[in-house]
């Protein structure tokens, strides 16, 4: 089955965003598909949000509820554990992906399940659960149409919400005819969908164990929910006698009432609908209805590290709607694969490096995959200030290089330049000296009031913009030349401009 491409969560080295983006940008089919998809969802979302006079109040409530949860996460985790147990479920704790996988495989094995059905869960993509189960002799069937497509193709997701956005209908027809053994299949989307329905119905009826993620879990009542469109979520959480749900510890919400906020924010931000077709809310085990054994696996896997950063913490507000992907000018052009992570787009650019830890060259490049335009912040239903976190993480990446990069890090040109700049800007004498030197140095470069191209390593800056040259007379020189000649200069410490 699927051999997943290694990504930031596989443990090995991943390429820099820039390198991977270059590959994606060269794929014109991918760019066309992505352009069409992101634009369609973007416009639909705007309409769905426009309809809501209280959208801003809902966003604010969503942000505040998440903040309340995260600041008191230990209490809420204990409360959730208690509620789920009270309702007949079992709760497991997993410090990392490996531990989560081991727990889930253990449950499947205890029921002699050689096959399990799964409903889309990014958490299980993060832990590489499918690969783990395969090594343990258990085959995991993805049941979301897009996940099925990419699983059959042996590829990875390129979008949180529509993972097969990079595949067109004729590619999918080929794939289904080859892998599902269907003859005589048109490339009409309803026909393709029906082929998947028939193939999966058999799997659903047979499965002994279902595996799901969770959109939310209520600490107060223990009620977990899966928000979906296709009905595969209902199938996986209803038909198998045993249900295992893997969820990140940040998915908790305090009270049942709080669903009224998130169930308004999520569908409109995600699929741009008033409400998604199906949502299942279950509270532990219900006698005679659905699985009679329920396991909730609580996953840390780096989340407590994110929590530990007071600016980065808001990243855990994320409800995985993918609105930020669809408005991002960078994502629209590069697609999801360039991020080398199960979390692509702007949210991925801040979540991935924090989850895997700063200091890994591939994911350290992600906070730079942005023009800081701020569109992601504007659409975020839980008000994550993504640009703020991006800049903060850039700082952490640079500091990490300085602190732990050894001699090579210290001699890194960016570091050397930044340190020299810092020194220059902090001392008036050096600053003025630098201005004078620059005025002399720039004469071969400045043309009609602008520098169009800088030499050597600095050329990158002027690739896409002009640079203003140092003027004939600086502000400080002008100030001193006024009558009275700058008696106030230098009276405040650190004055440097």
């Amino acid at each position, binding site marked *: 089955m699927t051999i997943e491409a290694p990504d930031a969560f596989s443990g090995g080295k991943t390429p820099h965003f820039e390198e991977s983006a270059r590959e994606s940008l060269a794929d014109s089919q991918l760019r066309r598909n992505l352009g069409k998809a992101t634009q369609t969802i973007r416009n639909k979302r705007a309409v769905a949000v426009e309809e809501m006079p209280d959208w801003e109040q809902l966003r604010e*409530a969503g942000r505040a509820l998440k903040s309340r949860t995260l600041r008191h996460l230990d209490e809420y985790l204990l409360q959730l554990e208690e509620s789920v147990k009270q309702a007949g479920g079992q709760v497991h704790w*997993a410090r990392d992906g490996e531990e989560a996988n081991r727990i889930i495989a253990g449950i499947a094995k205890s029921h002699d399940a050689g096959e399990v059905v799964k409903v889309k869960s990014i958490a299980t993509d993060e832990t590489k659960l499918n690969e783990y189960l395969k090594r343990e002799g258990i085959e995991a069937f993805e049941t979301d149409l897009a996940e099925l497509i990419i699983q059959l193709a042996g590829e990875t997701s390129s979008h949180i919400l529509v993972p097969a956005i990079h595949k067109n209908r004729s590619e999918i027809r080929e794939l289904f005819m080859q892998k599902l053994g269907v003859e005589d299949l048109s490339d009409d*989307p309803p026909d393709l969908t029906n082929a998947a329905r028939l193939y999966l119905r058999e799997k659903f009826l047979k499965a002994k164990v279902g595996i799901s993620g969770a959109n939310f879990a209520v600490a107060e009542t223990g009620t977990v929910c899966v928000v979906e469109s296709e*009905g595969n979520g*209902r199938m996986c959480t209803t038909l198998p006698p045993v249900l295992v749900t893997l969820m990140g510890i940040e998915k908790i919400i305090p009270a049942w009432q709080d669903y009224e906020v998130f169930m308004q924010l999520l569908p409109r931000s995600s699929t741009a609908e008033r409400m998604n077709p199906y949502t299942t809310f279950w509270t532990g085990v219900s006698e*005679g*209805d659905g699985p009679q054994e329920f396991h909730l696996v609580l996953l840390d896997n780096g989340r407590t590290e994110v929590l530990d950063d007071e600016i980065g913490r808001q990243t855990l507000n994320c409800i995985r709607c993918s609105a930020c992907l669809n408005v991002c000018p960078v994502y629209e052009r590069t697609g999801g694969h360039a991020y080398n992570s199960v979390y692509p787009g702007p949210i991925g650019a801040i979540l991935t490096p924090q989850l895997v830890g700063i200091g890994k060259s591939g994911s350290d490049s992600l906070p730079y995959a942005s023009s800081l335009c701020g569109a992601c912040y504007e659409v975020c239903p839980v008000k994550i200030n993504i640009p703020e976190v991006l800049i903060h993480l850039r700082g952490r990446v640079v500091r990490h290089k300085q602190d732990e990069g050894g001699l090579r890090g210290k001699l890194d040109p960016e570091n050397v330049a930044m340190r020299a700049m810092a020194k220059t800007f902090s001392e008036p004498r050096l600053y003025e000296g630098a201005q004078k030197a620059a005025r002399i140095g720039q004469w071969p470069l400045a043309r009609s009031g602008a520098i169009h191209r800088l030499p050597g390593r600095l050329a990158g800056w002027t690739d896409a913009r002009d640079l203003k040259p140092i003027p004939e007379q600086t502000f400080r020189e002008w100030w001193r030349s006024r009558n009275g000649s700058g008696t106030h200069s230098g009276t405040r410490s650190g004055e440097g401009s």
Partner: protein
Amino acid sequence: MEIQERLGDPFGNPFGGGLVTPAREEILRRVRRATHDVPKDEHPEDVPVERGYRDKDDAPREEIVERFAERVAEYEATVHRADESDLPRAIAEACGRRGVRQLVVPAGLPEEWIPEDVETLRDAASSPLSNEELDRSDGTLTGCSLGIAQTGTIVLDAGEGQGRRALTLLPDYHLCVVREEQIVGLVPEAFAKLEETVKGEGRAITFISGPSATSDIELNRVEGVHGPRTLEVLIVG
């Protein structure tokens, strides 16, 4: 840690290589360390949550019911309206149009709703229908717990006349009866009404907004993936 792992789980949990409870303690320790900036005397309720959004639709009843009908229909579900006295006939007609021969009937469904000329597959706690029987049936007839006008959503809570979840999942046709007085205006009104069910018996709740759908192939919307591909709603007033 490794020694503990070899010894197995000292706390009796059969899964997870014996580290389940130490994992719990460690995660809680990490969480507490990570939130050290939160003042010790701060309680969760001290973090302000401004609920400035709408929590009740003050529109006239008829307008709310009309909105519900419109929005359900926008999801490509079929919507009919009927008088109470006319309901059995409307149900029989719908089943006739669809060509239903075997109809799944949940426990607690009013007897007068069931058409005479169909074979009924009755589900009961003591004698539940098998998944195969449900899969082979032609359709299912249920009531509901609530309707939400704002979003065109039908809410099932596995109560009387609705049945367990599989009943409205495996058959390919779902005919759902919604009484006008069950329709609320806004999403928060629905969650408020459901609170008792969840906190009491803890029954599972399903939100249905149109038949299942996917946009996974080139973002073309296809109605009907899993679950009933046809949803028909009868609003009774």
